[in-house]
């Protein structure tokens, strides 16, 4: 058996195959939506092709057999012998699911093919035209003889393909006794040595190979030279034909990849969760390590011959060590942060399936896929989101007919949005459907005994009812979102992550479900600003623009507030030095800079001294180490080691309003 243990590559194979299937699915959905981009077909083909190659190499024969059929079908699509229709997309999407399940079972060492995958494979086989002809490889009938005459004339470009006649001779010698009858220079070769191009080959040979060799063996020696030489292969005259059949059987091609039954058991035990990390994060780690090593050598140099005059250098070194260690720690933590896009990516497929199942039309919009979440949070937020998306399509969005009757477009819109706000990560699922049906909710709640008949409830209280355990208003429990295990489970899961979930709804206009997750450690892109001797970071996503105001552009209003005119509206000015009690700050509006921020549709100008630059900031909770401060979402450490506070724009806007009021 193999000296190289291939099981070590299984995990990588599973990971890349699952990624390939994700890409395949996304491309299929795009095709299903009517895209005719040929690159999509290539992407799908490539994914199937890679999985097949890997599966065959690593001994997952069932997976290889399945992808082989799928690939044949895709080859027909790629070569435009088959058109893409909804049915084909559906079939291939089911194949993606089947492959995922097969890979999952492979990874757990279970039998890989099941009735479902076999049925699907049979369906694929039926569809692929002439599959049977492709699958059967007919071994050429070879006659064994006592020897062969081989006329071998190299074409001039033979050497340029990286081939070498010497290799041919070497391999022929391994088959039997090789006799060079004649070696010659071909006609047309330059007669002058100076005209000879060393990269061209002008040689030919008449060879005789003695021994009971089959034609197939000789062909195998010359296989790479197809098109690079002229060959004339003839059996020696006195060939005994009797042993032909035996030799042919002996040379039948062997199945190339032996199945490795022990391999499948090995993987099951080594199932550990892994993480794919962007190279930039790893580079940052390595940089930090470099810094650490430099600091260490500097400190040990000081330590070797320490004099009190070097105290200052020692302190510098220690401060540097502290800073680097902290940065290293943060970089390590950052490795756990992954973009929420990996969770969002499963929704196009889900929405596609639900559209078909429920006969609705949905346009899915994804925003903020790059928002990073801790891996643990990310893994656990998937299920609640799936629940909310299913609910939105099942209960929220109306049927095309109902929408039309209500004067809306037949296609409903479902938006998923992730962003940072107020020291939290917010994930919103909004639809433009019918909104919560208050009457139905109240009736149901009364029926369930959650509220008493005649009890007056505010809109918020009614909305709150849907999060009660066991609550379900769907006319019939569909297999999608019904079953009465809905919103209460969602809320519980989110609360387990230290977050919360709420809903706002307008009858006839739609609903917005908002999940708020704590950001124990998140990265934001921020603008570093100076206010006096302090540094404040304003999240880039909240910034509209920055400008310098002239004194006459600012107006005082009753109650001591200030406003300025900005694009047809008056915006309040919040002096950050005033709000946060900074001394030594610029108080003259003309000398400072106003950063216009927006949160929840409300704009405001923040007065700061200066803009210092853009920076990615690792958000640290202020609450955990100090206490909650209104208008501040957290703190971060700047590259020079100083602490900067991160402005909670939503909080500041509210602060400004309450002060103005």
């Amino acid at each position, binding site marked *: 058996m*193999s*000296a*190289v243990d*291939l099981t*070590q*590559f*299984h995990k*990588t*194979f599973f*990971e*890349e195959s699952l990624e390939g299937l994700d890409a395949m699915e996304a491309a299929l959905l795009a095709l299903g939506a009517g895209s005719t981009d040929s690159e999509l077909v290539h*992407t799908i*083909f*490539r994914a199937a*092709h*890679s999985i*097949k*190659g*890997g599966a*065959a*190499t*690593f001994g997952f024969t069932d997976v*290889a057999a399945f992808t*082989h059929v799928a*690939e*044949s079908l895709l*080859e027909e699509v790629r070569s435009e012998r088959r058109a893409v229709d909804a049915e084909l997309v559906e079939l291939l999407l089911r194949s993606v699911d089947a492959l995922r399940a097969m890979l999952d079972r492979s990874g757990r060492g279970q039998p890989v093919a099941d009735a479902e995958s076999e049925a699907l494979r049979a369906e694929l086989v039926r569809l692929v035209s002439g599959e049977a002809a*492709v699958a059967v*490889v007919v071994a050429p009938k070879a006659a064994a003889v006592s020897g062969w005459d081989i006329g071998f004339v190299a074409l001039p470009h033979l*050497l*340029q*393909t*990286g*081939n*070498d006649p*010497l*290799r041919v001779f*070497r*391999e022929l010698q391994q088959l039997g006794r090789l006799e060079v009858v004649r070696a010659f220079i071909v006609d047309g070769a330059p007669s002058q040595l100076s005209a000879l191009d060393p*990269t061209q080959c002008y040689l030919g040979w008449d060879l005789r190979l003695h021994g009971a060799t089959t034609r197939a063996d000789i062909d195998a020696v010359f*296989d*790479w030279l*197809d*098109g*690079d030489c002229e060959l004339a292969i003839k059996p020696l005259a006195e060939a005994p034909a009797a042993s032909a059949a035996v030799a042919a059987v002996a040379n039948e091609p062997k199945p*190339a*990849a*032996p199945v490795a039954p022990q391999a499948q058991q090995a993987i099951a035990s080594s199932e550990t969760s892994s993480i794919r990390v962007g190279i930039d994060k790893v580079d940052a780690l390595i940089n930090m390590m470099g810094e650490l090593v430099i600091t260490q050598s500097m400190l040990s140099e000081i330590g070797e011959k320490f004099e009190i005059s070097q105290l200052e250098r020692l302190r510098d070194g220690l401060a540097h060590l502290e800073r680097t260690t902290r940065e290293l720690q943060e970089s390590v933590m950052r490795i756990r942060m992954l973009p929420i896009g990996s969770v969002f990516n499963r929704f196009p497929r889900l929405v596609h399936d639900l559209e078909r199942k429920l006969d609705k039309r949905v346009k899915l919009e994804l925003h903020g896929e790059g928002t990073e979440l801790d891996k643990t949070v990310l893994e656990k937020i998937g299920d609640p989101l799936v629940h909310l998306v299913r609910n939105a399509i099942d209960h929220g969005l109306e049927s095309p007919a109902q929408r039309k009757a209500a004067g809306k477009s037949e296609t409903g819109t479902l938006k998923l949005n992730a962003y940072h706000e107020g020291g939290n990560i917010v994930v919103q699922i909004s639809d433009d459907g019918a909104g919560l049906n208050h009457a139905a909710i109240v009736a149901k709640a009364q029926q369930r005994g959650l509220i008493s008949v005649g009890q007056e409830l505010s809109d918020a209280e009614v909305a709150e009812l849907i999060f009660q355990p066991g609550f379900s208003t769907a006319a019939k429990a569909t297999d999608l979102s019904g079953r009465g295990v809905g919103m209460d489970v969602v809320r519980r899961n989110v609360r387990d992550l230290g977050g919360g979930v709420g809903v706002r709804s307008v009858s006839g206009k739609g609903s917005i479900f908002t999940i708020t997750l704590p950001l124990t450690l998140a990265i934001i892109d921020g603008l570093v600003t100076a206010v006096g001797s302090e540094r404040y970071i304003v999240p880039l996503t909240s910034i509209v623009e920055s400008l310098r105001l002239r004194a006459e552009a600012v107006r005082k209003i009753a109650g001591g507030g200030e406003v300025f005119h900005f694009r047809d509206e008056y915006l309040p000015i919040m002096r950050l030095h005033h709000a946060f009690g900074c001394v030594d700050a610029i108080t003259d509006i003309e000398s400072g800079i106003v950063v216009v921020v927006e949160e929840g549709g409300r704009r405001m100008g923040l007065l700061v001294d200066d803009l210092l630059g853009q920076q990615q900031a690792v958000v640290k909770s202020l609450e955990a180490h100090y206490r909650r401060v209104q208008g501040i979402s957290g703190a971060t450490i700047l590259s020079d080691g100083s602490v900067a506070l991160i402005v909670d724009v939503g909080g500041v806007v509210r602060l400004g309003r309450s002060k103005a009021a």
Partner: protein
Amino acid sequence: MAKILAVDDSASMRGMVAFTLRGAGHEVTEAENGQLALDAARASRHDLVLADVNMPVMDGIAMVRELRALDAYKGVPILMLTTESHTERKMEGKAAGATGWLVKPFDPEQLLATVKRVLG
């Protein structure tokens, strides 16, 4: 021992090829598509190139064509790692200037035997 450039977009295949060759004492450069392979090939000369056919960004066939246009790679053996189902792709590779091919799936022994075959 030889300096070999292994090109495949599949990390598991690339890992297997590189691991096997390194185990046999070769020096291996890995690249995950034709474009990156070209960059690596320009950076230093290799004695042998093993390349997958189907890859994003730049596929194996285009890569062979580009490699052959480099002076340093005029006669360097280039083997395509291809699957049986694509015999016509073999010839396409050949026409682009590939030396030969190794049919997937292959095991480490077959890989080493083929490398030996071409490097002598």
